[in-house]
């Protein structure tokens, strides 16, 4: 592992953010705690996606598959009478197993087929959870025992659990970013054949990243299920979320350490605002946000070249130059 000054700096900044979050949780009221818990959860999913989609460059749309698996594993374990921590452990393990089983066939695919294959896993698992009534309760869902304690205490408990998981994802990302493993993933993103030629065991790397990502997502799903105390197929395997996650990471910057966090914060703030003021139009506005991100911030908020943006602004103040045909590089 290469641990240089820049990495140490990033680590310290990250730890400060997490420490600040934990300290804040003591004074915040339940609404903000709820929002921050959602934010922490989305950040976990973003960091997990970033390993596969960002570092490795595989357009995975299966985040929610593992999230849902984790949620159901947690729900089923708790209904069977296992304690909550055992249920979370079960969620993580279930995610690892499913990621391994799905990764072996799916990671042979590339590009469009990989994207479609991973989307299909979401659909298939939603259908299965809808129909396998003896295990999952079908469309009725599962009621999970509610945690004892006052709402304030329970809210803080789940926030800290989610924050802890987010911290774990952050640390995993730092380690991946700075080790041979992450270097190999970046090689795979750039050129898989070349990566294989310089001695990287491409398939093993891909499966490892996929499983790592799956474990983080399913653990988040487990904590989420315990928190809301009720899961149903529509909620656990939500197609919109599976596409929102890459959008968030894109917003923050793909294949970077802080990209998922920044994207998550921007997105959650925007979404809360939209939900609060445009309830009937929220999905349309969400769509507009996605479109805007694609057109205006394809490499994230930190991908903007501020110097050239300034230059552009200055140019605009001058009288317009004589018109000429602009050849758009459309295709």
């Amino acid at each position, binding site marked *: 592992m290469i641990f240089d000054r820049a990495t140490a700096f990033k680590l310290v900044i990250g730890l400060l953010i997490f420490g600040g979050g934990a300290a804040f949780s003591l004074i915040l009221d339940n609404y903000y705690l709820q929002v921050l818990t959602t934010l922490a959860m989305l950040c976990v999913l973003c960091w997990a996606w970033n390993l596969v989609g960002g570092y490795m460059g595989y357009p995975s749309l299966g985040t929610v598959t593992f999230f849902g698996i984790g949620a159901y594993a947690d729900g089923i374990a708790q209904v069977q009478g296992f304690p909550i921590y055992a249920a979370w452990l079960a969620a993580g393990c279930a995610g690892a197993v499913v990621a391994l089983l799905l990764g072996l066939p799916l990671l*042979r695919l590339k590009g*469009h087929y990989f994207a479609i294959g991973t989307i299909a896993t979401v659909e298939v698992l939603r*259908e299965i959870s809808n*129909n396998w009534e003896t295990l999952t309760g079908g469309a009725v869902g599962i009621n999970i025992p509610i945690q004892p304690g006052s709402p304030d205490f329970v809210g803080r408990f789940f926030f800290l659990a989610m924050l802890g998981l987010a911290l774990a994802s952050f640390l995993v990302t730092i380690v991946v970013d700075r080790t041979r493993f992450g270097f190999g993933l970046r090689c795979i993103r750039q050129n898989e054949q070349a990566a294989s030629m310089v001695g990287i065991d491409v398939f093993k790397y891909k499966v490892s990243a996929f499983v790592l990502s799956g474990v983080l997502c399913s653990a988040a799903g487990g904590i989420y299920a315990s928190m809301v105390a009720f899961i149903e197929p529509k909620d656990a395997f939500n197609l919109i979320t599976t596409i929102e996650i890459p959008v968030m990471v894109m917003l923050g910057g793909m294949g970077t350490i802080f990209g998922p966090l920044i994207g998550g914060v921007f997105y959650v703030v925007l979404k809360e605002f939209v939900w609060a003021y445009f309830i009937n139009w929220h999905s349309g506005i969400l769509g507009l946000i996605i479109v805007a991100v694609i057109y205006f911030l394809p490499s994230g908020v930190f991908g903007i070249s501020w110097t050239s943006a300034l230059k552009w602004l200055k140019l605009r103040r001058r009288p317009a130059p004589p018109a000429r045909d602009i050849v758009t590089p459309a295709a």
Partner: protein
Amino acid sequence: MLGQYITNGVLIGGLYACIAVGFSLVWGVLNVINMLHGSMVVLGAYFCLYGVQQLGLPLYLVAPAVCGLLFLFGYAVQRGLLNRVVTQPILITLTLTFGLDLIVNNLILQGFSATPRSLVTNYGMLEFLGVRVPVVRIGGMLVAGVLTLLLYWLLRHSKIGRAIIAVRMDRHAAALMGIRIPQIYALTFGIGAFMAGAAGCATALIYPVTPMMSGVFLGKAFVICVLGGLGSVPGAIIGGLALGIVEGIGTLALGQQWATSVGFMMMMAVIVLFPTGLAGKKGYE
């Protein structure tokens, strides 16, 4: 009993083929997974309902007008929005069309409300060897089938069709031959939208329509496209019929609720075993 299910499967398969062929063409030629496709089908269905019920026009006038409108819509979307990012990686184009899908679906929901609506049509039943079939389904299937064949003919024999196929086989070489790529892309997307409109009209005749159905249509299009191979019209027909029949048999064997899962499982199997689709060959019509 089995005959009834297979007949139903074939009839619904024709509609599936019509839904999938536009999606498949866009994917094959533009290399874009068009998440907007399901909403375009729903849009077509609602336009059709609006024309027939609100404006009181006859169906044979409304349906072509709806298809034309959808063509213009598709052409404009490709020309104005998608052409700018069409060469970007898959993640960009897919999320972009997904964003557009959210917008269009929200507009449909606000414009037409979520209540299921249907054209009440009753042209009677045909009965043959104990298999009962509503006439309107046969009509819908025939129109969808004829349009799909027409598209096949267009791609094979017209100048535009050959240009589309050329762009699909090699974009750069086609550009060197003097084909205007953005134009062809926009036309292709327009044709995809046209077929979605036709499928929407046929759907409005057969099923009650809600805005939520767009995801179902999109799912069918995925499955058929993977089964039949990308951008191939015969592939879409074969894939559509296969899916219809398999769903029919799956319904009989496992019950209605598993029908969709059977389709998706089949798709997962095909995607892993034959990544270029059952119809195989890439690039040619």
